[in-house]
């Protein structure tokens, strides 16, 4: 009988981890639907960028208030997880505070966790106020209605409840240790230091030992089950960034932001056209063509994007810093770089769901696609390619690259550029300038007074 809680705990833990593993597998499968992209270069530069930007949060703090609050929650999250290790061991082996033998070090650790938990709780409340009371513009834009809004608040509620449970558990534990309850009191004296929960503990004075044990156990169980739930909530939430921010920054673009990639297939074709020795009537080298010509230019759906762009769509935590800096968005246009990332993820999830149901499903045969069904042409054409969104992203996401790939599809596959742009492009073709001036007049300025 006494092992029942341990067995239940083991089952909960195993279920939580297996379900998480299943989601990770789906995530990998979906990301790998993307086109190849080689980001295996510059390993040490990538590592140091990851250390600086993801681990070190260097871009978060460009907004000092949000940045500072985020650092608190982030540090709190990482450090309090050390305590989760003890909680898991205690749960599996029926021990009480297994690391208590560390003595003063243990007291210091538990004390720090408590202070961090309080700071996290305060930060989370401030975050909630920023979203729901102050209503900062980037949190209330049109793409943040419905699930994205609720998701953001659920995360804050879960975090707040977890912190409250952690402190309640400690407060009850402190009370039980002090009154010398069996299974709680340690011979060596009080295990742990309780700078925060000591103020909650007096609430239990006068309660029976049994009731306080019930409270302590309940808090302990809900806390650890909550953590397992949260781990599995990630896949369905914008909160995946806590894991994916690291690989996303690692694999992010290291080149100057102004450098847009050149399509190799086009290069091959243009080189052949310009080669005076090329035989225009030559049979195309078939095998080679099949390998090197992409099925289509640019992107109209998620499988046309690179795996990195797809990874980024899962990494995006919808903070909206990109959109807040976007000149088109600031002037009331439809474009929101954040929405580009959210739409990419939504469509990818849609594809993933269809794949779960039918292994032979092919997104290219779907009557739905990313272009038009999620992202409109009006959004794509509003972009000035200014890179403000790319610069603003704290985790190395490049929404502009998706916009460019989709414009490429529109122009190269559908010839669907706005009419004025077609004029400019015709001018470039005919006069070597986007305006209808003659190339022979290019030096006229030098003779004008």
């Amino acid at each position, binding site marked *: 009988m006494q092992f029942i809680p341990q067995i239940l705990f083991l089952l909960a833990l195993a279920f939580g981890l297996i379900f998480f593993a299943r989601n990770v597998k789906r995530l990998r499968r979906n990301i790998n639907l993307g086109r190849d992209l080689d980001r295996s270069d510059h390993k040490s530069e990538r590592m140091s960028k990851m250390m600086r930007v993801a681990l070190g949060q260097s871009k978060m703090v460009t907004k000092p208030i949000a940045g500072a609050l985020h650092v608190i929650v982030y540090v709190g999250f990482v450090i309090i997880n050390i305590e989760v290790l003890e909680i898991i061991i205690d749960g599996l082996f029926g021990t009480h505070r297994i690391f208590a033998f560390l003595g003063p070090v243990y007291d210091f650790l538990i004390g720090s966790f408590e202070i961090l938990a309080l700071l996290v709780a305060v930060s989370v409340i401030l975050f909630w106020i920023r979203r729901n009371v102050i209503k900062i513009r980037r949190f209330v834009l049109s793409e943040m209605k419905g699930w994205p809004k609720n998701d953001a608040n659920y995360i804050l509620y879960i975090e707040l409840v977890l912190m409250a449970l952690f402190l309640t558990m400690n407060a009850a534990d402190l009370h039980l240790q002090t009154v010398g309850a069996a299974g709680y009191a340690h011979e060596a004296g009080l295990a742990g230091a309780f700078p925060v929960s000591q103020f909650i503990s007096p609430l239990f004075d006068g309660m029976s030992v049994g009731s306080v044990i019930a409270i302590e156990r309940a808090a302990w169980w809900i806390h650890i089950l909550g953590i397992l739930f949260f781990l599995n909530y990630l896949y369905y939430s914008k909160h995946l960034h806590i894991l994916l921010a690291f690989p996303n920054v690692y694999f992010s673009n290291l080149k100057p932001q102004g*450098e847009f990639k050149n399509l190799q297939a086009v290069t091959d074709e243009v080189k052949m056209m310009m080669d005076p020795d090329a035989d225009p009537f030559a049979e195309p080298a078939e095998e080679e063509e099949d390998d090197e010509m992409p099925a289509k230019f*640019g992107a109209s759906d998620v499988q046309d994007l690179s795996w990195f762009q797809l990874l980024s769509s899962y990494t995006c935590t919808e903070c909206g810093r990109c959109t807040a800096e976007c000149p088109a968005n600031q*002037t*009331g246009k439809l474009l929101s770089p954040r929405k580009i990332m959210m739409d990419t993820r939504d469509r990818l999830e849609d594809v993933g769901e269809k794949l779960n149901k039918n292994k032979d499903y092919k997104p290219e045969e779907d009557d739905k696609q990313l272009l038009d069904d999620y992202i409109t042409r009006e959004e794509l054409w509003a972009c000035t390619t200014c890179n*403000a969104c790319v610069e603003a992203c704290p985790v190395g996401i490049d929404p502009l690259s998706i916009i460019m790939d989709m414009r490429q599809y529109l122009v190269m596959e559908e010839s669907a550029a706005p009419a004025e742009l077609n004029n400019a492009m015709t001018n470039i073709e005919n006069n070597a*300038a*986007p305006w209808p001036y003659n190339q022979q007049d290019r030096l006229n300025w030098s003779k004008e007074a």
Partner: protein
Amino acid sequence: MSEELKVPTMAQYMAEGKEPEVLFWVGCAGSFDDRAKKITKAFVKILNKIGVDFAVLGTEESCTGDPAKRAGNEFLFQMQAMTNIEVLNSYDVKKIVTACPHCFNTIKNEYPSLGGEYKVVHHTQFLKGLMDEGRLKIEGGKFKGKRITYHDPCYLGRANGEYEAPRDLLRKLDVELVEMKSCKQKGLCCGAGGAQMFKDAEKGDKEVNVLRTEQAIETKPDAIAAGCPFCNTMMTDGVKGKNKEDDIEVLDVVEMIANAEDL
């Protein structure tokens, strides 16, 4: 304006068996747009004055392909790029200076993988270099003490990380440099990039250049300094739209230097 500009072409240099120190890439705006031509001329006047040995491609120059690429037409872009690279390589060009950040970005970043590798600098970087070498001497002049705000072109700033060369030049003019609320890494676009220059904006509640001009006007400047012919056009339009064109000039950094030198 009395003196004639000396603008040798690469073809002339080649005929004489000489190589210039640098190729000046004028760009389409610099060649054809009336406002931008003034920037081109101001730059040439300075080059002539200090005796920089430069040449232009003249009628052999053609659009870098930047607007085509940003509009999504990779094919047209690469056609332009390879045509230009062929010309540049035939003259064995090694160093290029341009007053257009779009040309600058494209030649510097997107030409190398197509076979065009050159040292490419923006004219503000080039002038800063001349100043550091002591060849270009800038002193206060008519802008001394004037309030100037500098607008970062996206393709010079964020795209290529150059924020200081133009500001260093302005400081040399002894101006009072004031920054807009969005500047440097967070600089707001003028609205012309990504081929927007050549089309109407999508529906919204404001034009991007108006928003940017408002940010500039907030700093109460005597002049707005720019480093890009397109930004220049957008800001000039913005200032006119606010009926401030008599109070606030929009000038390229190189025009301010030329003015200060009374060229």
